[in-house]
């Protein structure tokens, strides 16, 4: 602490010294003049007797320099020399460390980008998600927007398929399928993000008639519109409809997901079927000032109870799972957090094994360095001094390993980015070596240096002078032997832990692969076709198009069957509808929700997917078409839930492609 205080005092010390020296010269000169010497000569003589003022001042200042810094430099110098004398040893050690450290840096850069960097929003810790478990009908969101007191809310829809916010972009060269998001007007201002160009949506633009506007993502603007500065105000054709470009978002803005290429306003139309019955929306909120997350949760709980009776039809009481109002970060990061931390832990174990290996190498070399240390000790180096020297050497190795590891990490990161699924790992694209990763790498370099160097250094500095100088190293050899055994045991223990953990993960992966999903995915290939919505306004045109597709598929040699479905199983969200079953006991409503996940399929779907039919019949061609009597298939849990006889189901959902009053046709497991 003395030296720290001195650091601040140093300037003062130097000034004092300088003033003092000049005072001295002055006094001497005056004295000489008083004795009758001419002024010029006196000044000259005073200087001559004093000596070189600059050099003396410098030497005076050097006194205050840090002695340990000089010692450290000497140690580093000596360490580099001794490492260079053993290039093979140095190379092997640095390579070992580089592998361990490089892997750690690469995984840490992943953790850093995905978990540690704050979300690129204003005050990101005040942004919450209401939708880890629960989505809301658009009408519910509008109600929420007007009544909630604890927070401001915004809703969005995204994705392929059911949500219908993916678009065919035409008229701009090659047609392109765009991944879109439909957002409520206040989403951007709620997140506190400004557009790169143009503007974001204004309040009210999510109302019917005003929603034909689009905001482009930066990458789309760059590659599709050649970064045209005049793109704002242009009309572009999405799904056959004309939209006006009003803005371009900055490159770092990736919400709801990194895939989002265009944002359009939600069309919150109370007269449309979709108002209650359309795809439900996830909701995010920004807590108002001074509101705790708990009070927000309580309000949402009350709100949900109030919303249920507002539905135009009866909804089961357990429509929503427990209310969750949690920081948005948690939802975005999701279960990636635990996976990444497990990975980081495993990789840290690998580094520990590398450390144990290097420590072993150092101990092996220690035997050959006994004499060198003994000579140093004889010349007056204390044990601490020798220890410090050896530690400096191992830290140098650690730093060397860090530097080489960083180079490895650089390649590892681009490799990771290429192989990891961008959909499952948020913010993957932003993974890079930044300041924090550099710091981390340097820190583990030094840390590993101490870790693998400490035991050998303590061991080697324990010099038995007379013994070592005379006969060499018998005593030390036995004790290093013991240490090396310990290290080997440690290494094996770490390796066992790693192998066990890896085995467990492989086992759960194996179990996941072998879960019986109720269908057989072998030999089934899938593809997606996405005609514009407008195309299907004419039902017969749409149907004949799809029929042609299925027929042509069947005609392909080697194809045994072809079918269409609106959503593949285990592939994200599907819509669901509330239903009443004839004969379904009313009191059961409380416990079992008659919510049906609805899939729209063509007759061959069940054979193609090899889904067994338990009772009744599958769909036949005559079931399709506008005139056919509506039919439905249900799964076994629904059968079991009902009393044995009630086969007729009456459905109250509105505006589905399959009209209400469906007849239950059978069941499958």
């Amino acid at each position, binding site marked *: 602490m003395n030296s720290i205080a001195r650091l601040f005092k140093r300037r003062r010390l130097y000034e004092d010294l300088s003033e003092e020296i000049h*005072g001295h010269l002055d006094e*001497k000169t005056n004295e000489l003049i008083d004795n009758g010497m001419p002024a010029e000569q006196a000044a000259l003589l005073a200087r001559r007797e004093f000596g070189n003022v600059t050099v003396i001042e410098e030497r*005076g200042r050097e006194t*205050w320099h840090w002695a340990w810094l000089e010692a450290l430099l000497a140690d580093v110098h000596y360490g580099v020399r001794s490492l260079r004398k053993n290039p093979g040893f140095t190379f092997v050690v640095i390579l070992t460390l580089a592998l361990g450290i490089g892997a750690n840096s690469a995984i840490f850069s992943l953790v850093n980008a995905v978990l540690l960097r704050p979300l690129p929003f204003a005050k990101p810790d005040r942004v919450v998600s209401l939708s880890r478990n629960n989505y809301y009908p658009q009408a519910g969101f509008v109600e929420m927007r007007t009544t909630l007191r604890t927070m401001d809310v915004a809703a969005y829809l995204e994705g392929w398929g059911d949500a219908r916010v993916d678009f065919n972009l035409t008229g701009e060269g090659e047609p392109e399928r765009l991944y879109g998001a439909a957002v409520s007007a206040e989403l951007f201002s709620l997140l506190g993000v400004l557009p790169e160009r143009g503007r974001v949506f204004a309040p009210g633009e999510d109302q019917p008639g005003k929603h034909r506007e689009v905001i482009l993502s930066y990458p789309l603007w760059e590659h599709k519109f050649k970064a045209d500065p005049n793109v704002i105000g242009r009309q572009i054709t999405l799904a056959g409809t004309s939209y006006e470009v009003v803005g371009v978002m900055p490159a770092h803005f990736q919400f709801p997901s990194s895939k989002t290429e265009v944002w359009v306003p939600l069309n919150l139309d109370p007269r449309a079927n979709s108002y209650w019955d359309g795809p439900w929306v996830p909701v995010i909120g920004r807590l108002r000032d001074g509101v705790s997350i708990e009070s927000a949760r309580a309000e949402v709980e009350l709100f949900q109870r109030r919303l249920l009776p507002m539905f135009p039809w009866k909804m089961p009481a357990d429509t929503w799972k427990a209310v969750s109002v949690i920081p948005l970060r948690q939802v975005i990061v999701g279960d990636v957090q635990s996976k990444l931390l497990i990975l980081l832990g495993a990789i840290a174990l690998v580094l520990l094994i590398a450390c144990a290996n290097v420590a072993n190498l150092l101990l092996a070399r220690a035997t050959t360095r006994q004499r060198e240390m003994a000579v140093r000790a004889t010349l007056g180096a204390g044990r601490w001094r020798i220890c410090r020297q050896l530690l400096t050497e191992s830290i140098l190795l650690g730093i060397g390993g860090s530097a080489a590891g960083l180079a490895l990490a650089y390649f590892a990161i681009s490799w990771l980015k290429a192989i990891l699924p961008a959909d499952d790992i948020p913010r993957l694209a932003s993974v890079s070596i930044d300041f924090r990763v550099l710091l981390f790498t340097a820190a583990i370099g030094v840390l590993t240096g101490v870790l693998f160097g400490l035991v050998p250094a303590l061991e080697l500095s324990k010099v038995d002078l007379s013994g070592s100088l005379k006969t060499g190293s018998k005593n030390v050899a036995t004790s290093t032997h013991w240490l090396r055994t310990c290290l080997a045991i440690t290494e094996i223990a770490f390796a066992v832990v790693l192998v066990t953990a890896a085995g467990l993960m492989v086992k759960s992966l194996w179990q996941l692969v072998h879960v019986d999903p109720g269908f057989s995915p072998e030999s089934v290939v899938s593809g997606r076709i996405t005609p514009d919505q407008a195309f299907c306004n004419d039902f017969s045109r749409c149907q004949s198009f799809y029929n042609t597709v299925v027929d042509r598929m069947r005609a392909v040699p080697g194809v045994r069957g072809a079918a269409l479905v609106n959503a593949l199983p285990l592939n994200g969200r599907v819509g669901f509808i509330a239903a009443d079953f004839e004969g379904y006991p009313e009191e059961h409503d409380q416990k079992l929700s008659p919510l049906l996940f609805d899939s729209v399929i063509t007759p061959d779907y069940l054979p193609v997917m090899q889904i067994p039919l338990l009772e009744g019949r599958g769909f036949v061609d005559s079931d399709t078409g506008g005139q056919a009597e509506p039919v439905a298939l249900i799964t076994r849990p629904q059968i079991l839930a009902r009393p044995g006889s009630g086969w007729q189901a009456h459905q109250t959902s509105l505006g589905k492609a399959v009209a209400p009053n469906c007849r239950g046709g059978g069941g499958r497991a």
Partner: protein
Amino acid sequence: MKQENERDLFPGALEMMVLRTLRRQPLHGYALVQSIKRASDDLLQIEEGSLYPALQRLLKEELVSAEWGVSTTNRRVRIYKLTPKGARHLEREVTSFERMLQGITRVLAPVKS
């Protein structure tokens, strides 16, 4: 440290003389030099300036303390004073020096035989 071999004195000699001189009375740098020169009857070749790095070392080790004041000739000067720690250090140094000197004198004495 390298500069030490440029001096005519052995390492630590100048410091010892400074401490010894300061034990009599607190002095500023210039007066200190004059005092040492006078005491040695100008036998010792001291570069006046070399006093200052020595004083800095003593200051750092807290063997002397310094304070700005006014000299008899009415100059603003930095006056050095021996600290108790410095006094003890001087005692030890002088003892060991005397012993060393004794040894050297014996070795250098004309051999009778």
